[in-house]
């Protein structure tokens, strides 16, 4: 019998293709993701055009989760809107109370929502992502309460792919891209946090790591 103490468990990190994100269409989904996509597609409703679009977007973010170490999808639904619950390895600033120190959580559980309106309207940047956990996010572009929606900009380009939303979210939460001017309504959802980060701008960004780089830990 093998000595169990001799076994070393190593985390298998995904291999980023040399072409980067351009390789997404050619990424073959693994069995878990293939099954998740199939199950979601079975319940997909809407016009044939919208169903096809949801399928393509879902497949792409599943493929993204296979090449990105810091992005993992737990659940996908496609009944009406395309919904995904995903884990994003990104530093998330949190403040549990005014007298508590700033904490930086290593990852966030995010809810992604991709509605049909995105095909024909310039949807506001707050409509796509919500930080489900941790609570108490202390970020200029994340609302305090109300489900912690993340503002990615005043309006997103028509038909923006969901993979772009994921990458924008990483940039926003890590503060690689951040809007801190409380007098500019475009983006600031927490004015107090905006002021805090203006004072503590030396801590920005929370990481300089690229989205496709290996996640810490």
């Amino acid at each position, binding site marked *: 019998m093998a000595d169990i103490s001799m076994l070393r468990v190593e985390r298998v990190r995904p291999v980023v293709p040399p072409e980067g994100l351009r390789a997404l269409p050619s990424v073959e989904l693994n069995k878990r993701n293939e099954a998740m996509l199939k199950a979601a597609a079975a*319940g997909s*409703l*809407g*016009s*044939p*055009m*919208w169903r096809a679009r949801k399928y393509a977007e879902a497949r792409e973010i599943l493929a993204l989760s296979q090449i990105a170490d810091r992005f993992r999808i737990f659940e996908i639904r496609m*009944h*009406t*809107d395309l*919904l995904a619950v995903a884990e994003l390895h990104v530093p998330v600033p949190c403040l549990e109370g005014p007298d508590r120190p700033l904490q930086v959580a290593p990852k966030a559980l995010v*809810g992604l*929502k991709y*509605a*049909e309106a995105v*095909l*024909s*309207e*310039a949807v*506001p940047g*707050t*409509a796509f992502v*919500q930080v*489900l956990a941790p*609570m*108490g996010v202390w970020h200029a572009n994340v609302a305090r*309460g*109300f*489900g912690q*929606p993340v503002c990615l900009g*005043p*309006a*997103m*380009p*028509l*038909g923006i792919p969901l993979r772009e939303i994921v990458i924008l979210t990483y940039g926003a939460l890590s503060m690689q891209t951040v809007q801190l001017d409380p007098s500019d*309504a*475009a983006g600031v959802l927490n004015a107090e946090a905006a002021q805090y980060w203006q004072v503590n701008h030396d801590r920005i960004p929370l990481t300089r790591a690229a989205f496709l780089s290996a996640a810490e830990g």
Partner: protein
Amino acid sequence: MNNVHSGYAREVAAEAGWQVKNGAHRRERLPQLVGLARDADAELDRLRLAIIGAGSVGLAIALSAARLQVGGLLLVDGGRYKMASLLTHGILPHEAAAALPKAAHAGRLCKQISPRTRVFAYDGPIQAMAMDALVGFDLVVLATDNVAAEIEAGLRCLRLRTPLVQAAVHGETLVAQVRFYRNADAGGACPACSLNRAEIEMLTTGRELKCDGTGAAPRGARAGAVPTRSTSCLCGLAADLAMIEILKYVLGLGPWAAPGRTSAAASGGAAPAGGTACGTPAGRGGDYVLEYAGYTSKAVVTPLASRASACVCDHAATWLSASPPRPLAACSLSELAEAAGPGGGLDRAWFTVDGMVFALAGVCSCGKRRRLNVFTAPGAAGHERCGACGEPFCAEAFFWRRAVAAEELKEQVNRPLREIGAAGARCVLVAGDDNRAVLFSGGLAGRSGPGAMTAHGS
């Protein structure tokens, strides 16, 4: 009173002192039109026009329609006059100075000109109107420079299969243009089919083409970096060209003269044959563009191409209008689905309650989540409160659905709407797998909206 939040237009009342009975009748001026095979009076009495945009072109169309004493008019515009409006709109200086709301003011003028016309005005964008706001209209006129409104109006008309006439100008080249989208089927074009890259970009950045030339502004502020500049005469020309095309369609004149066709308003009209004797080389389904070029003094009629493959709008969906079997609040969604008979049955049905969302879960101030399973206004506070912080659970975006599948509704699908938070539902859309949806109207639509002109005469 502001009527924007209701989602429905308000009827413009006749002003005291106007002699409705003794006013002029269109018969006194309407010519005996060559080739007219219909009762023009009856057709115009029946005609209900919705005009999106009450600016320089839309106002002129509205006044022209009022002078024809059409049966009903709906005017939609969220803007107000500015002093610069005086240069292109048919208004007086004091009206411009008072910054009057365009739709309400145009509505008053129309009602004064034609007290017999039922006039409705909505001082907000078409996007904010209820889903059934255009139900019952025979024809929609699009006269706006707002790209988002163009797409929205085009989409609504496509779904309702209502003909759409778009009037536009290009000031720099003195071109007036009228596009006729018949919307008979999914194959025809829509306003979004011909949007160019700049217009899409305009939409994306939330900026709008504006006549007044004000600078860039955030989305919704109705200002833009690229002003649409024109002259009063060109706007008037576009309006008159549009009105003549509408008149031809409604009265069955020229290319619309089809044997056995009795009423454009009642039947939805027949498509003109391509390249008719009257010279309208209509495209698929009768779609065409009429363009007058001021520099060459030439008018050209060209068929509109079929649906653009890259069009952002779904052309296939069709919405039928119906009355609910009982008052809407007393109906369950499964009952409405049964009445609608959506493709795929209840399992494949999904529902949209206008102005509301179905909240699967809510969150309180301290971050606790709780299952809600009720219809509510987006972000509204629920009745239940958190035991820890005492604050109400509010519906949150990720867990609410504007369109909700029967599968997600679970047992709520069988409960009356009034028991699941939708007592005040204005209209409900029931859709299925077959691209066909049924719009059940009730509540406000019957009391104060333009729908009152059809099924719910007051």
